[in-house]
């Protein structure tokens, strides 16, 4: 479904991503792990078009998507849930998700009909799925951090993506919120059959839900394989898992 081949991106001479390879098959959950600064977020932003790669190829569903603008990548079926909460602060939770649904339905240019008539069921369904239905009318800026991270994901779901990219879905969450989010991700993959690419520092989460894991260090991809394979790889143990 998604192939990333020898992708490279540098900022002012610093190689953030250097020759990274990654592949994601339909229906799979793939995790990217690696120490802070290994280039995980940069890799995701290259895929979603927020950054332009210097070299390398990104193939999605058989077509090159490198160099496309973020909105074009999104329309091909890839949604990103940001690591740092990135929502529409002055709008309600409902409106936050509705905007993504309207965008997906290509209704954002309707001038003279009420937004109360478009994308309502879809939005309610997503909010129900992620457990934000009772907070639908709250202004999103007033939510707790954990709820805002869940809203992040809900917005990304609004586009009905084929591939959902989650950049550290549990970052900054309390242990309780983290376990709720893990359940949510489990449910999303089981019930909606989503293909998910995510990165995460919580190793328990990674090894419990990922089908395959890709390990990054210094912008390079060390290995991509099944959890067992990654766990027993010596290079990975030395680089990241600390010999456990």
């Amino acid at each position, binding site marked *: 479904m998604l192939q990333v081949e020898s992708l490279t991106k540098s900022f002012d001479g610093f190689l953030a991503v250097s020759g990274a390879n990654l592949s994601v098959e339909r229906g799979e959950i793939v995790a990217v792990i690696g120490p802070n600064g290994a280039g995980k977020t940069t890799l995701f932003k290259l895929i979603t078009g927020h950054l332009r790669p210097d070299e390398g190829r990104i193939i999605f569903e058989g077509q090159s998507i490198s160099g496309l603008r973020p*909105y074009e990548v999104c329309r091909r079926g890839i949604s990103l849930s940001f690591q740092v909460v990135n929502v529409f602060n002055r709008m309600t939770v409902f409106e936050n998700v509705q905007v993504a649904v309207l965008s997906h339905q290509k209704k954002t240019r309707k001038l*003279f009909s009420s937004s109360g008539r478009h994308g309502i069921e879809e939005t309610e369904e997503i909010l129900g799925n992620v457990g934000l239905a009772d907070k639908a009318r709250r202004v999103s800026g007033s939510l707790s951090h954990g709820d805002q991270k869940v809203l992040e994901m809900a917005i990304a779901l609004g586009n009905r993506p084929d591939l959902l990219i989650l950049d550290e879905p549990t970052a900054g969450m309390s242990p309780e919120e983290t376990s709720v989010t893990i359940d949510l991700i489990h449910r999303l993959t089981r019930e909606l059959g989503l293909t998910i690419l995510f990165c995460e520092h919580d190793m328990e989460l990674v090894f419990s839900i990922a089908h395959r894991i890709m390990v990054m260090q210094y912008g390079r991809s060390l290995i991509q394989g099944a959890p067992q394979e990654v766990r027993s790889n010596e290079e990975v143990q030395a680089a990241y898992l600390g010999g456990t």
Partner: protein
Amino acid sequence: MQRGPFNWKTLWPYAAVFAALLFLPMALSRFYIYITAVIYVTALLAMSLNMVVGHGGLYQFHHAAFYGVGAYTCALILVRTELPAWVAFAAAPFAAAFTGLLIGWFCVRLNKLYFGMLQISLGSLLWAIVFRWYDLTGGDDGIHGVPIPDAISTINTSYYFILLVLAACVSVMYLIYRSPFGKTLQAIRDNPERCEAVGINVRRHQLMGIVVATFFAGIAGVLFVVVEGSVFPDLLFWVLSLEVFIMCLLGGWFTFAGPMVGAAVTVALRTFVGTYTEYWTLILGVILILLIFFLPEGVMGFIIEKVQGGEAEE
């Protein structure tokens, strides 16, 4: 979720105000009717600006340019051609919107302040053309004695015409405010990066917002011609743009009706304080400073917060 575009529960105060305004000319002297009409024209201009500033998050720094284009288009067709008056009235908003499309097309390529700077430059260029092109525009003398159709040429009939057009425009603006497009524009204001990530072509929507807003600015320009019977280059001057921008802030730029309040306050200040001192902008400046400290959401934002304070919190 509110399903219909108009909800009487929240709109009846506006309907009541509108009804009261219909009877206003019976109670007021000619001068005050005229001032009220000027407030309506300015209110429409401020409302049109707020569509892109408050709801779209764009630094539309030279909105008056489009207002001026509307007013001049209307006046020139009335004075220089034999075309019927309705053609002049209809052509003006389209001329303004077309200018908005041209200038906006360049501006949306830039962000924030750079957007504003480029717009001031291009708008000032328009002002310079109007100011210098004596043969067409009459230069700094402007055009006086524009023939207004008899039906709306007296102070009372023009008052009603302007009030009705204002009410119609504000209703349409409200429709747009609550439409999928309106919501999208508000989302772009809050977070353009996120909008791109959910598949929205931000620049195209911003440009569309500018075209809609400048269309209404053009209508305001027509109303100015109706109430004043003349046009002059100051209509396109950047100082007016700044004033209108301040009206939006003053009234509450995140609210829908706030800019009308801001326009009323500003025009009233200019008229009444202006008779005592030519330094009325000094008073406006002081009010603005107080506003920033005490009512950062504007007058209307403050009122809405007070009225809904209890019920909005869950």
